[in-house]
């Protein structure tokens, strides 16, 4: 009986429930401010690796990010923005994740390797024109699930690596888990790059399927 009411409740739910739509739109300005202020902070020391042992593999050593990508005006201004907005980013993400789990929405959104790998590969084949037709999709296809789940993962790692470089003494165990302060700084910047790549891909696909924007605004049909 319990499962059938849960089933009914799921069927009454819109494609994009209000909680998910709200978290999605709130996330955008928060991520933009975090990225821009983060790049302004990076500009103060636009190098990777400790002093005297900078990493040789990093191609942009001592190249500051372009000023049009930065927010906050100067180092202190950007730090205040970064450490203020971070709380709201984490809060929004926490509410989203709790909702995802409590509502059961995660089942149709999170990438489950056993269920979704073949579908994701088939979708990739379709995008690469190896396959003529897209694989069947159940709400999301495997590639979508993989992309959205990766974005959540990047979000979790960007927060943890941020804490590692924010408090490397008081939260030394987080810093140590990343392999030290300067490695955590690399991870933090890498997550930004990955999130930016995700966003670029997301925007491209949304542009190809503009109706998804309407769904993310109105919630779409029930069931």
């Amino acid at each position: 009986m319990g499962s059938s009411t849960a089933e009914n409740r799921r069927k009454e739910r819109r494609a994009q429930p209000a909680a998910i739509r709200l978290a999605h739109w709130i996330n955008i300005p928060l991520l933009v401010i975090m990225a821009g202020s983060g790049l302004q902070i990076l500009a103060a020391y636009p190098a990777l690796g400790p002093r005297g042992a900078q990493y040789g593999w990093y191609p942009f050593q001592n190249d500051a990010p372009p000023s049009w990508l930065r927010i906050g005006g100067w180092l202190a201004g950007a730090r205040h923005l970064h450490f203020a907005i971070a709380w709201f980013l984490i809060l929004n993400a926490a509410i989203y994740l709790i909702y995802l789990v409590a509502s059961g929405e995660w089942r149709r959104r999170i990438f489950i390797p056993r269920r979704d790998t073949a579908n994701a590969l088939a979708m990739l084949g379709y995008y690469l024109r190896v396959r003529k037709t897209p694989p069947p999709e159940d709400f999301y296809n495997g590639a979508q699930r993989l992309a959205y789940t990766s974005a959540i993962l990047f979000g979790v790692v960007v927060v943890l690596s941020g804490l590692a470089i924010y408090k490397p003494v008081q939260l030394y165990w987080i810093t140590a888990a990343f392999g030290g302060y300067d490695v955590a700084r690399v991870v933090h910047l890498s997550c930004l790059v990955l999130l930016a790549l995700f966003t670029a891909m997301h925007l491209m696909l949304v542009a190809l399927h503009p109706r998804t924007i309407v769904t993310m605004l109105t919630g779409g049909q029930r069931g």
Partner: protein
Amino acid sequence: MASLITRRKLLLGLAATTALAGCDSRPASMFLAGMERWNERVDRLLFSPTRLAPQPPSSELTPEAAFPSYFISDTIPFAPDNWMLMVGGLVTRPSVFSLEQLKRMPQTSMRIRHHCVEGWSAVAEWQGVQLREIARMVGASRDAQYVEFRSFDAGYFSSWDIESSLHPQTILAYGMNGHALYPDHGAPLRLYSPVKLGYKNVKYLTEVNFLPHRSGGYWEDQGYDWYAGV
């Protein structure tokens, strides 16, 4: 010479600066000032008076030539011939210490990773005397919740919360990597601690004052966070 930011960037950030000093009533700056107070509260909760910063292996020591040294004077500040450290404020025995007196006190030596507000890190060994030993000697009052550090580097100064000041790894350092401090790193005496960002660790010390109130700092007064815990 080398400093945290250039004058041009400073002017660019002037609006944000005055805003964060609390003399601006625009909602955005009030929001940021409020969040800074919130972050300080969290920082103080995170701070442990007994947790020691991990000591990196000696293989991670930064070559001294690669360890940046910042000061605000136009040229490297040199100590006056009759240099002494004055310790005062809310203390029962205001005192003056010579470098020799400080060196005769129990020495603390620690290998520590330095964290600069700019984002770089570097490792060195620092030798000196624990500030809490000095506080005990001069009889610092319980009402002294803050400690102010002054220097002969063009008036550079900072102030700390008492808990961070009395941390066992907060020292008045006269040695770096086993030799006497060089003038570019704050000779003859500098504050050093792993629990604060670099700009809180005042070089070229002249005065240590135990105070009932916080008294700002050179970068703090321009908008950098005051607590700056690491």
